[in-house]
Structure formats: structure tokens, C-alpha cells
């Protein structure tokens, strides 16, 4: 066997290029498997530990106003509540580095004790008994704004700047992914942060002595959180519930859980594509080697080697590829996993106790890889069983030519020149090989399309949300409902040319027993600044009576257009159910919202109230700052957002999507080139006599290349034609599977994407052809013509 092993190594050496190409694909597959799965485990483990150690909530309720003793009541009256804490949580605005940003003030006990949603102090210290205005700042915000312990921050509370002294930098399981609300997908650490203050201080600045507006609790194991939620709802209803949120719906948790889920699914789908392609190539390459060494196999058998020995010799090729691929891929995967974990931790502030490498993943990765390699190898090598020594040592029967169906179309066939005829006949002579090459191309084309689709979908969503639907310059939220008089005052701020009031409120929407907490936005008739649009970006006129919701919400509620839905607003003393007819469906990508015209909600809000939010158009961008500073002086003004700033930030955050698209493109290029390289190398080797004969006859190199490369071009074109619809389907499946209750992006394909995908894959083939033309150029006429076969 030692001699045979030497032979094997030499065979490897002769087919370096091919084995390298297979190795790359196998290694990439393994790398994706170990890397993505390690990341998923890193994140998921860190998250679970973090949640447990710092008692992340199971449920929280946002209330309008409740006496502090409600916490005691909750603990006593609701079965299964393990711990409960009451806090004051309030979003306020803050002027920082020349910009208005939003911060969330969260109260903590004056002196440290165990609590739900505990904090981790990263630097500095907890509150001391000294000044009342000490604060702790959430880490990401702290870093993004270059704060340091000892700095002063000045949030605006009830129209007054309140000076807070920073005493520490903290992190919390509640804000692993700190986004303000469900309308943001990517956190902007510069513009939204959490500021923790003493409970006593919060009480005094918000005028909430002995009160809370947020209650968070953990529950005992085995207790259904839905039951607790219902009981909490009953118990706190009188206090005015804004929303009750279970852990699974808590924003930060939902984002990280979705991310982990997506990593988990791509951790198996990505590698499979690569291993399948690798298996296909191994199948073909091994088949060729066995075919090529027929005579040798005959000799081996004649000498007395058994079938099994011969088979295992050839199987060893694919086993070596599998083992080497696993080793290289695992090593790369460890680094890839570290890279990916670091990348994810830019977005998720998790205590990753060192980025772990999961050596345990190498075993399943190697087993799966070896399985694919051996399966492919066995299927192509089992031909050795059929080789009879005497027969194998005789000359091979000449390759046959056969008429193919296209030839029946005489008019067409006669127009082809000989090289095209050879090309087409060769494709049909090796149908299986052509089919497998096509599959490689189909995958590559599909992957390109998916990569582009992801970027498009995000661009489309941004375009719809910020360009088509938001025509305003500034949006301002109020901390209470304003009447028409107050709105008029805002309208008269200099440079404001148009103002539209909005009502944005949380409601419970229900259809029979199915219900969902969502946001309801009510707009005026014929709005011009805040427009609801359809998929094409056309303005949708909201019906005077009735409501419009997203497709997804319609599915959740199991309702149909024309049916009645009940709305229950979370506004104190207004908890009657109001029936409204579902009038239509509007597209929505982020969050779950319902839209209606103003008329519909008159009964839901207070007498004379008209808006708790407004959108403004100003005469010139250069006046934006002055308008915003006037707005900030209004005591009831909450968050103030400039659309352009928001859009800029969202675009910056979406750079991530571009890097994903980039990875997909690289992957597709490697795939296409590796497949074409392998198959063509085989083709050139098998047909070297034909090619050399052409050379001898006086064909130019370019003409000889055409004979081989036209075949690749034809197969590539065929693969692209099938690959485009395949990619489209893949893109749709992927966006659907990435869909969460929280956001659903449409799969968007542009005409230019199809062209890009087709051209890119075609270029890969042409480039590979170019690389391989050297192999044809160096074919030695004298040497090859001498040999019989």
C-alpha cells in the first residue's frame, strides 16, 4: 500500500490545480459551517448567561402613572412572579454636540440592590450618597459620544436643562441592542442612549413622587408568561397601560434572538451548497481519474489486488480532499468565527467572555464533509468493480460519435461550423458532466442575485420609508396631546411652511380572540407630508371610515378586507373597544402598524385634542437648525427628528448590507471559477489528442481554444438562464425566512441585477478560459501524437 500511496501523491501533484479548486470549495464550506455556528453559539451562550446573571425581565409594562405600591400588589396577587421592580422610564431630548438627540431616563434604586434588569458597571461606580444628580450612562452611547466619568450631561426635562454628573459607564441585558422603538432597525449610539438616575431624583424631576410608570418582572420557571401578562393587564388597567411586553417581544431581545436564529439557519444552508458543489466536482474528477487509469487498474487486478483494495486506493483521493478540506476549513473557520463574532458584537453589546473557538464543531463538520466526499468518490469509483483485467489492458474502444436531436433540424445544423458541431456533440456526449457544470453555474448565478437582492430590498425599504412616504423635514413628538390652538402656535414658528398633525398611539387591535399590540397612526385628509404609499410608491388615499394594516398584521389577525376589527387604545379611561372596518392593505417593512384617517379616532382621544405628534416642512434646509431650536423650547416637545439626519444615519448603518452583498459576490465568483476550471481541465486532458490534431492541421491557438471554450460559454449561458429564476426564487425564500414579526422586507430585483449576475458569471467563465488557454498552448504535438491513446 505504501507504493500505491506514493502513486497517489504523484497523481495529486499532476492534478494540483484541480485538487486545489476542490479543496478551496470544501474548505469554504467547512469554514462557513464552523465559523457561523461558532458565532451563533458565542452569541447565544453569552446572551443566556447575561440574562440569567443580571435578571433580565420576563415581562414589562409601560404605564401612564401608578403608585409605587402596585409593585407589592403585583408580587402578591400574581402567581408565579419571582421578582418585580418599579421604575420611572421616560424618553426626553438632550442637546449634545450641536444636535438634539433622544435619551431614555431610567430610574435605579438610590443604593444598590438586586433587581430585575440589573446593570453591569463597566467603569466608574454606582450612585453614592452625595449629590442627587448622579447618573450612569449606557456603554455604547458613552463610547460613541466620547463621554468620560466626571462629565456633565444635560437632558431637557419639562423644558429645562437638568445637569447630570456622569459617575459610571454601565451595560444592561435590557439594552444589548439599544433602539428607541420598533421603527428603527439599526441602533444609532450617537443619537439614542440610556441614562440611569437615582429613583428619588427621577421622582422629583418628573414630579412623580411615590410613583412609577414602568414595572418589570421575572417569573418562576414553568409559569406561562402569557397568563402573567393577562393578570398584569387586569391589575394595572386602572393606571393606564401603554403596553405590556413579554420577553419575546422586548425589542433588544427580539433583535438579538432574530439574529441568532438567522445565523443558525445560514450556518447550515451555506455550507451545504458548498459541499454539494464540491461533491459534484469530486464525482466528476474521480470518475475521470478511474477512467483514465483503466489500464493501470487492469494491471493491478492482474497482479492480484482485490476489488476492495483498488477501490480504497481511489477512495483515498476523496478522503484526503475531505480531511484536508476539513482541517484547512476548520482553521479558517475558527478565525472566521472570531471575526464574525466581533462583527456581531459591534451591534450587540454582549459580555463575550473572550471570543470562544468551538473545536467541538470540527468533528461534525469533518463528518459531514467526509460523508459528502466519500459518497461522491464511491459513486464514481465503483466503476473499478466492472473492470476486467484482460479487457482493461486492451485498447479502449474508440469514442463514439452519435447524431443528436438538433441535427434533425438540418437547416440549423448545416449552418454551424465544425467547432460548434464538436462543442454541441461533446456536451451531449458527456451529459452528466455538462449537467453538473450547469448546476455550479446555476448556484453561482443564484448567489449573485441573492446578494444583490438583499441590498436592493434594504434600499427599497429606505426609499419607501424616507423618500416616498416621508415628505416632511422635521418630525416632532409631544409628551401630551395638544389642541388646535397649541398646534397653530407651532405652525407659526418662522420658516415653517406647512404642518400636519398626527396621532400616534399604541393600541390593541383584535379580531375575535386574536389580538396584537401595535402602533396606530392617524393622519389628516389628503396629507402631503406624511403619506401612506403602496408597493410602487404611489400615494394611497386613506378611506374616511375604516383602517388599513399591513399584510403581515392581516395574517396575524386572520382577517380579510371588509371585516370588522376592534381597537382598544391604551389611553387612561378610554379602554372601550371600538369597531373599525378593515379597508385595505398597505406595505410595511418595519414594525406592525395600522393607519387610518383622522375622523376614525375622534372618539378614542380626548375632547379638543388633535395631535401628539406633528410633521413640518420648512422653507429651506439651512433654516433647519433654527426651527429645531425653537421647537426644543416648547415644554411639551419630546423627540425632534430631522428626516435628512435620520436618513443619513440609516444609510450609514446599512453599510453592513453592502458587505454581505460583497461576500456573496466573492463566494459566487469562487464557485463559478472552480467548477469551470475543474471540468475544463478534464475536458482538455481527455481531448488532448483531438486538440493536438487540430494544431497539426494548422488551426491557430485561438481557433482551438474556441472548440473547448465555446462549450463552457454555452453551458454558462444555459446555467445563467436557469440560474436567474433560481436566484429569484432563492431571494424570495431567503427574505421570507428572514422575515420576523418585527420587519419584513420585500424581495426586490432590478432589471440591472439580472444583467449584473449574468455578466459577472460570464466574466468568471471567460477569465477561467483565459487561465486555461495556457494548458492548451503547452500541449506537445510530437509527444501526444506518438501515443496511441
Amino acid at each position, binding site marked *: 500500500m505504501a507504493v500505491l500511496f506514493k502513486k497517489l501523491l504523484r497523481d495529486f501533484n499532476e492534478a494540483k490545480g484541480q485538487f486545489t479548486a476542490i479543496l478551496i470549495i470544501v474548505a469554504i464550506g467547512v469554514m462557513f459551517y464552523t465559523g457561523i455556528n461558532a458565532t451563533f453559539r458565542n452569541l447565544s451562550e453569552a446572551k443566556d448567561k447575561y440574562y440569567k446573571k443580571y435578571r433580565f425581565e420576563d415581562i414589562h409594562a409601560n404605564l401612564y402613572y401608578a403608585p409605587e405600591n402596585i409593585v407589592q400588589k403585583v408580587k402578591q396577587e400574581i402567581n408565579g412572579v419571582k421578582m418585580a421592580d418599579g421604575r420611572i422610564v421616560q424618553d426626553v431630548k438632550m442637546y449634545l454636540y450641536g444636535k438634539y438627540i433622544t435619551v431614555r431616563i431610567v430610574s435605579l434604586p438610590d443604593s444598590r440592590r438586586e433587581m430585575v434588569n440589573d446593570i453591569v458597571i463597566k467603569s466608574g461606580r454606582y450612585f453614592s450618597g452625595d449629590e442627587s444628580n448622579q447618573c450612569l450612562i449606557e456603554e455604547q452611547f458613552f463610547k460613541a459620544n466620547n463621554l468620560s466619568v466626571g462629565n456633565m450631561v444635560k437632558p431637557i426635562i419639562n423644558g429645562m436643562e437638568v445637569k447630570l454628573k456622569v459617575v459610571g459607564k454601565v451595560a444592561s441585558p435590557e439594552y444589548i441592542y439599544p433602539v428607541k422603538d420598533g421603527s428603527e432597525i439599526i441602533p444609532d449610539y450617537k443619537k439614542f442612549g440610556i441614562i440611569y438616575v437615582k429613583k428619588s431624583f427621577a421622582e422629583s424631576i418628573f414630579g412623580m413622587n411615590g410613583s412609577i410608570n414602568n414595572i418589570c418582572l421575572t417569573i418562576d420557571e414553568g409559569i406561562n408568561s402569557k397568563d402573567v401578562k393577562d393578570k398584569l393587564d387586569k391589575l394595572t388597567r386602572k393606571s393606564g397601560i401603554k403596553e405590556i411586553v413579554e420577553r419575546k417581544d422586548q425589542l433588544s431581545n427580539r433583535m438579538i434572538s432574530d439574529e441568532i436564529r438567522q445565523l443558525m439557519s445560514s450556518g447550515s444552508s451555506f455550507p451545504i451548497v458548498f459541499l454539494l458543489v464540491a461533491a459534484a466536482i469530486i464525482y466528476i474528477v474521480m470518475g475521470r481519474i478511474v477512467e483514465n487509469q483503466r489500464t493501470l487498474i487492469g494491471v493491478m487486478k492482474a497482479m492480484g489486488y482485490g476489488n476492495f483494495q483498488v477501490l480504497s486506493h481511489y477512495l483515498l483521493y476523496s478522503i484526503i480532499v475531505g480531511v484536508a478540506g476539513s482541517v484547512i476549513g476548520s482553521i479558517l473557520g475558527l478565525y472566521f468565527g472570531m471575526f464574525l463574532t466581533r462583527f456581531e458584537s459591534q451591534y450587540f453589546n454582549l459580555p463575550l467572555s473572550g471570543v470562544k473557538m468551538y473545536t467541538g464543531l470540527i468533528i461534525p463538520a469533518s463528518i459531514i464533509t467526509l460523508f459528502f466526499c466519500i459518497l461522491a468518490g464511491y459513486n464514481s469509483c465503483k466503476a473499478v468493480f466492472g473492470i476486467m483485467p484482460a479487457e482493461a489492458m486492451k485498447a479502449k474502444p474508440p*469514442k463514439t*460519435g452519435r447524431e443528436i436531436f438538433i441535427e434533425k433540424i438540418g437547416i440549423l445544423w448545416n449552418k454551424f*461550423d*465544425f467547432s460548434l458541431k464538436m462543442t454541441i456533440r461533446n456536451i451531449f456526449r458527456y451529459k452528466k458532466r455538462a449537467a453538473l457544470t450547469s448546476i455550479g453555474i446555476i448556484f453561482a448565478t443564484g448567489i449573485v442575485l441573492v446578494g444583490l437582492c438583499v441590498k436592493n430590498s434594504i434600499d427599497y425599504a429606505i426609499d419607501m420609508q424616507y423618500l416616498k412616504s416621508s415628505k416632511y423635514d422635521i418630525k416632532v413628538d409631544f409628551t401630551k396631546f395638544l389642541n388646535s390652538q397649541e398646534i397653530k402656535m407651532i405652525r407659526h414658528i418662522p420658516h415653517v411652511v406647512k404642518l400636519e398633525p398626527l396621532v400616534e398611539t399604541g393600541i390593541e387591535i383584535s379580531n375575535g380572540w386574536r389580538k396584537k399590540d401595535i402602533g396606530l397612526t392617524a393622519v389628516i385628509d389628503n396629507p402631503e407630508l406624511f403619506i401612506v404609499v403602496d408597493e410602487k410608491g404611489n400615494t394611497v388615499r386613506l378611506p374616511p371610515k375604516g383602517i388599513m394594516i399591513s399584510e403581515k398584521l392581516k395574517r396575524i389577525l386572520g382577517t380579510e378586507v371588509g371585516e370588522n376589527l376592534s381597537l382598544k387604545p391604551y389611553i387612561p379611561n378610554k379602554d372601550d373597544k371600538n369597531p373599525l372596518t378593515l379597508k385595505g392593505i398597505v406595505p410595511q417593512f418595519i414594525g406592525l402598524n395600522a393607519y387610518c384617517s383622522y375622523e376614525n379616532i375622534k372618539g378614542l382621544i380626548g375632547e379638543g385634542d388633535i395631535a401628539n405628534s406633528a410633521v413640518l416642512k420648512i422653507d429651506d434646509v439651512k433654516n433647519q437648525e433654527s426651527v429645531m431650536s425653537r421647537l426644543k423650547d416648547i415644554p411639551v416637545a419630546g423627540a425632534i427628528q430631522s428626516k435628512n439626519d435620520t436618513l443619513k444615519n440609516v444609510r450609514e448603518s446599512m453599510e453592513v448590507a453592502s458587505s454581505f452583498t460583497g461576500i456573496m459576490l466573492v463566494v459566487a465568483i469562487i464557485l463559478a471559477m472552480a467548477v469551470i476550471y475543474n471540468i475544463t481541465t478534464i475536458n482538455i486532458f481527455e481531448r488532448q489528442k*483531438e486538440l493536438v490534431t487540430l494544431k497539426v492541421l*494548422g488551426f491557430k491557438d485561438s481557433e482551438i481554444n474556441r472548440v473547448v471554450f465555446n462549450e463552457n460559454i454555452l453551458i454558462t449561458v444555459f446555467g445563467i438562464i436557469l440560474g436567474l429564476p433560481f436566484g429569484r426564487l432563492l431571494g424570495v425564500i431567503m427574505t421570507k425566512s428572514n422575515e420576523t414579526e418585527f420587519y419584513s422586507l420585500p424581495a426586490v430585483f432590478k432589471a440591472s441585477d439580472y444583467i449584473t449576475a449574468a455578466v459577472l458569471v460570464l466574466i468568471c467563465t471567460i477569465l477561467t478560459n483565459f487561465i486555461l488557454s495556457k494548458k492548451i498552448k503547452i500541449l506537445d504535438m510530437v509527444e501526444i501524437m506518438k501515443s496511441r491513446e
Partner: protein
Amino acid sequence: MDKIIELVEVVKEYKMGEVSVLAANNISFHIEEGEYAVILGPSGSGKSTVLNIMGGMDKPTSGKVIVNGSDISKYSDRDLTLYRRNMVGFVFQFYNLMPNLTAVENIEMAAQLSKNPLNIGEVIDAVGLKGKERNFPSQLSGGEQQRVSIARAVVKNPSLLLCDEPTGALDYNTGKMILKLLHDVNRKLKKTVVIITHNSPIAHTADKVIKVKSGHVESLVRNENPQPIERIEW
């Protein structure tokens, strides 16, 4: 008559690792236009090397190969390609047909390379392949395949037809028929034909016989009375 090709002191040295082999050692001869020449020699004598050099498939280590007044041994690969294309037709021992082209397509393939090819139908007639045009090589006998191969070489209308053991893979009778065909090509189509063989009786049919041994020309004989192939036995 004019010399169509002349070899002057041609040396070909093959380096195989540390050993070097002199496949051709100072070979000089010429072939005249319209001649039917045979290069005779045992295997390993260097006759194939000579043919490869004549055909522009290989370059000599030193010496000159003069064709139409220019030395093709100095040609670039590109020029050699054009030389093979325009001047030379090859016939091989193992035919080397394209397995997935039919007989007529194999011939067409060569014809399209030439500026003034012969009529394909006439060539097929001349080599006696009528009725077999649409067969693939695997559907033809050895003799028939060699006929296609000859047709493929001839159809380009080359000045020089180089045949490397054209009967080597054929049985006696078929071999004779192929030689007859080559002779006809020489006489009727006025093509210069050079045949390489180790089969000495064939030499009797030639206008000129060049005997090669161990890489050098042993003798060069002009045959005033070439025998018709039918009279030759071996």
C-alpha cells in the same frame, strides 16, 4: 524540378533529464516538387523526428529547413501554424480523427482552413468514401478511417503530404489500398507525398528513397523505375 523542401545539416537533440539523445544527427536531403518519396528506417532511427521537423510540428536544434526559399526552423510558433495550415497535410498511423464529427465534417473542418480547398465531394469520391460521408469514425473500419484522414489532409490542397506510417495500423490488403490511394494522390492530384515507413518493400514504389539509421541518412537513392504498388509483396 524545383526543390519543395530541403533539410540542411539538421540536428535534433532531446534532453531527457540528464541524458541527451540525438534523434537526428546532421541530416541533409531535399524533396522535389511532385515527388513520391519514402523515408525508410527501423523504429527509433529518427525518421519520425525528421517528418515532424518537415511538417513544422517540431524545431531542429540546429540546421536549416528551407521551404520556398525561407528557413522554417527560424519561424515563430505563429508562423509555423500558418505553414502547417497552408503548406502541409498530415496522415497519421492512428488516423486521429475527431470522434464526434462525421467523416464529411472531419474533412470540412480541414477544408475551411484553406484559402483554396479542393471540392469536398470530389475528394470524397477520390478516396472512395462515397456513401460513408455521414458515418462517425467509430462507425468506420480502419481503412475507411485512414481514407478520411487522407481526404482531410488532401482537401486543404497542400503542397506537401506527410504520412507517418500510414499503413502501420492496417491489415495487409487495406494497407495496400491506402498506399495505392496515396500514389494516386501523387500522380493525379500532383501532390508531393512523403511517406515514413519501416517496411522496406514499400520503398520500391517511390521516386526517391531516403534510408535513415541512428539519426543520420544512410543512403539516398533515386528510383528511376518505381514499381506499381500492386506488384509489391511483403
